Structure formats: C-alpha cells, structure tokens
C-alpha cells in the first residue's frame, strides 16, 4: 500500500535519510525502529510531506505522492501523528478531534458525532470537555491518535505514540492499535518501546544513521547481529554471545 523507494534527505552535510526503501502491505502493522538520531522522524516527515525529499519516491496505493503538500496526502488517506504532541492547546478534546473529523464530514453535526465515536474508541469518551492543554502526557498521546483516526485514514503513521507512558498505559495503547488494524487501517509505526513493537508489528525495518540496516519479522530482527551492534555498539553482539558461552 505504501511504497517508499530510495528516499533521501540531507541537512547540510548530514544524510538524515539515505536511500531508504520501505514497503507497507495493505492491512499490516509495520515497525520502524532504530537508535536515537537514526533519522526515523525525518523519514516520516519526508513520507508525509512535511519535509521535501532530495530524491526517491513515495507511492500510496500506486499514486506518486512524492513532494505533495501534507494536507493533500491527508486527503488521500495517509495521516501522521507527532512524536512531540501538537495539541490545539486551547481547544477542548472534542474540538480537537472534530478538526480531524471535518476532513470527511463537512457538516458540523456529523463531524461532532464522528469525533465522539473516535474519542470513545481510544478511551477518551470521558475527557471530551477537557482543554487539550490540560491533558497528561498519556492523554495527549491518545489525542494525537484520536485526531488522526478521525480523518478516517487508510494508512496511519504513528510516531512514538507510546513514548513516556507507563506499562499500564502502554498496554492500553497496544490494545487500541490492534483494534485500529482490525478495522482495516494499515499502520506504519516508529516505536522505541520494544516490547510493544515486537508484539504488534509483523514486519520491522531498522534504521541506523539514515540507512535501513535490517528488515524482517520481529524474531529475526531481535537476533540480528547488525541490529544489536547498532543499538549497543560495535562488538556487542560478539560479547553477548561470548557471555552466553561463558
């Protein structure tokens, strides 16, 4: 469904994203992981139109959307969330989600109904009248999710929706993400919380220093030498293996 080919973007001399290929099949949950500074968020930004790629292409269901403005990409059915949550701080939760719902429901009454339905689905049904600026971190993460869902996307780009949450909250979001997929929405997620991404994603891409260094099923990735070294430093895999023998 999403087909990223040779995507590159440099900032000055730094290649933040370097010839990245990503495939996201229809109906899948695909994970994008990597150490801090690997270029994951830039990669997302380039896919969703927030950053112009230097080269490469992005196709959504066959349509070439490389370099499109974000609002047109959202209209076509691909919506991102932000790692650093971007609530409409002085609007209520209801109004926040309605902004998303208005994309497909121009009439107020319908947008309102759609927004309340989505809010209930992510467990925010009781917070509709709260000001978004007053939400906790967990609440803001859910709000990001709710707003994006309210646009009724085909493909959802989730940027670290679990960062900063406690284990109970993570479990809840994992359940919500499962339900979203069950409703037929394809998901590409950046995630640092390994236990979550390992249990959710059927396929994982590992990004390091702007390049994809490994891809495969979660179990393969966890055992991959290159991946372990990317996270823990060179020689770590050997030392771990040595430690296991000793």
């Amino acid at each position, binding site marked *: 469904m999403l087909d990223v080919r040779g995507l590159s973007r440099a900032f000055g001399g730094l290649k933040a994203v370097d010839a990245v290929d990503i495939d996201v099949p229809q109906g899948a949950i695909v994970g994008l992981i990597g150490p801090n500074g690997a270029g994951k968020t830039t990669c997302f930004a380039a896919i*969703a139109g*927030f950053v112009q790629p230097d080269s490469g292409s992005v196709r959504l269901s066959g349509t070439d959307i490389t370099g499109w*403005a*974000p*609002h047109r990409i*959202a*209209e076509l059915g691909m*919506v*991102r*969330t*932000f790692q650093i949550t*971007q*609530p*409409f*701080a*002085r*609007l209520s939760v209801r*109004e926040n989600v*309605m*902004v*998303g719902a*208005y*994309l497909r429901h*121009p*009439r*107020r009454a319908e*947008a309102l109904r759609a927004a309340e339905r989505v809010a209930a689905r992510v467990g925010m049904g009781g917070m509709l*009248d709260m*000001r978004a*600026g*007053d939400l906790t971190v967990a609440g803001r993460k859910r709000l990001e999710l709710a*707003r*994006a869902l*309210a*646009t009724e996307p085909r493909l959802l780009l989730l940027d670290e929706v679990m960062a900063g949450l406690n284990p109970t909250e993570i479990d809840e979001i994992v359940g919500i993400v499962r339900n979203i997929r069950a409703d037929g929405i394809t998901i590409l997620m950046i995630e640092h919380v390994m236990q979550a991404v390992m249990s959710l994603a059927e396929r994982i891409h590992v990004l390091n220093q702007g390049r994809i260094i490994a891809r495969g099923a979660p179990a393969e990735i966890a055992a991959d030498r290159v991946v372990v070294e990317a996270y823990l430093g060179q020689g770590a895999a050997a030392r771990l293996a040595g430690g296991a023998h000793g």
Partner: protein
Amino acid sequence: MNARRIVAVFGAALVAAFALPFVLPSNYAVNVAAMILFTAFLGQSWNIAGGFAGQTSFGHVVFFGTGAYASTILQVAWGWNPWLGWIAAALAGGVVGLAIGALAFRAGLRGSYFALVTLAFAEVFRILANSAEFTRGGLGILIPSDPRAANLQFKDPVWFYWIALALLALSLAVAAWLKRSRFGAQLAAIRENEDAARALGIDVFRAKTICLGISGAMAAAGGTFYAQKYLYVDPSIAYGVEKSVEMLLVSMIGGAGTVFGPLVGAAVLGGVGEITRSFAAGQGLSLVVYGAILVAIVAWLPDGLIGVFARRGGARRGRDA
C-alpha cells in the same frame, strides 16, 4: 447551547438596540452609541483574522482605507451611487486582503513577521495615497454634502446608528458562523498549531488567505461608512495607524477569538473615552488609560474581559505564545 435560544436572545437584543436611540437624551449620545457599534464592527473585522485565525495584523487600516477611498473616488470622480460604491469598496477590500494574504502566507510569514508586514503595507498605501493624483494626495477628497438616503448621507445621526447596528449584527453573524462551522474550526486549528492543522488535511495557506479576504472586505465596508459619515477622506484618516490600533485594541480587551469580545471592548473603550474627555480636553488622557487597560488585560486577563464571564468549568488558560 441551544441554537434556537441563542437566535431568540440575539433577536431580542437586536430589537432593544434598534430602539435605543429613542431613549437616548441627545443626538450627541446617539452619535457616541453609533461610534461604539461601529468600532465594535471594525474590531470584529480584525477579530476574524487576528482572533479566530490567530493572524495578528498591525495594519488592518490598509483595508479600511482602501474601502474609504474606493467608494469615495467612485462616487466623486466617477459619479457612482455610494450604495453601489459601498459594495465595490467591500470587494476591493476583499481583493486587497486576498492579495496581501497570498503574498505574506506564501512567503511563510507568521506571528510578528506577519504583523510587521501588514503594518508595512498600511504605510505603503498611506504614502501612495499621499502622492497619487487620483486620491488628490494630502488634500484629501471632500464628498459634496447632499443628505439624502439615496446618497448614503443623513441629517439625522440615528440613521448612521442603525447602519452601524446592521453592520455589527452582520459581523456578529459571521463570527457566530465561524464558531460553529468547518471553516471556523480550521481557522482555530491553524491558530493553535499550524503543523498539526496541516497534518489533519487542512489547506493552511488557502484557509488563511480566504480568512484575510473576508476580514479585509468587512474592514473596507467600515471605511465607506466612515467616509459617508464625515464626508471626507485623506491619507491619515484612511491609513492612519490609530485605526489599526483601535481595531486590535477593542478585540484584545474584549476577548480575541470570541464572538462578543470586540463589542465588549468597544463599549469599554467608548465609555473610557467619554469619561476621560470630560476630565481633560484632547486625546492624551484617553490614550494613557487605554494603554493601562491593555497592560492590565494582557497581564491578568489574556482571554479578555469576556473571559471573566465565560470561564466555564474552571478551564484555565495555557497559552503557548
């Protein structure tokens, strides 16, 4: 939040406001009331862009003055009927709004940069009006006095009161529509966070530009009203910075981004103006008091005076800018 009840209350208030001149003691009082309503209308035109969409302009007079000149020139030099000229003036203001919006927003100007660019546009228009032939430069243009309704001129000030009331009612309707429509929700989203708005499928450039067009058309309609009331336009009346400040002030004091904020702000400023005038001649004292009020509002009531009444459910502010 029953829409029918809101309309009923609004209608009753409109009837009361319509009848108000009959109980006011003098023509002077009617004039003061008319100018309060008119200032509220101008404030609302600013509020559409500055309050609802968060596009703070320091030069809204660029639209006001364009409206004043457009109808006056069409009338004096081209023999147009001023009612028709009024419509043309609103259109001209809308076009200037769209043009400035297209230029400034395409260049990605936000916040104080946008504010400064609007100020610059207003100054450029003032200088142009001061030097161009067809605006008669610094001499200004006199509209020949011929008080007939067909000429949009009236002997009795009550008519200007009623016209100001109609303008205000129209602007309140626009604001109320923004509060409850998709376009209004898009503007609020843009005001709060442009990137998030963009991510949710909002064409930010288009929405902001259209918003400035609407706002500009309204301010320009105000310019024609002003010209017809005083039968004279010159560059400093049309494009003087005081009017820009006044529009911004009444909205901020009353409550930017609220439907009734500009009306509350205009009433307070009008009242303060009358009181200070009774103490001292000239403008000096009223400006000092305005300044003090603005400082107090910004420091303690960032949602404006209306925020005092409208604070519901203990919702507190958390403004990020």
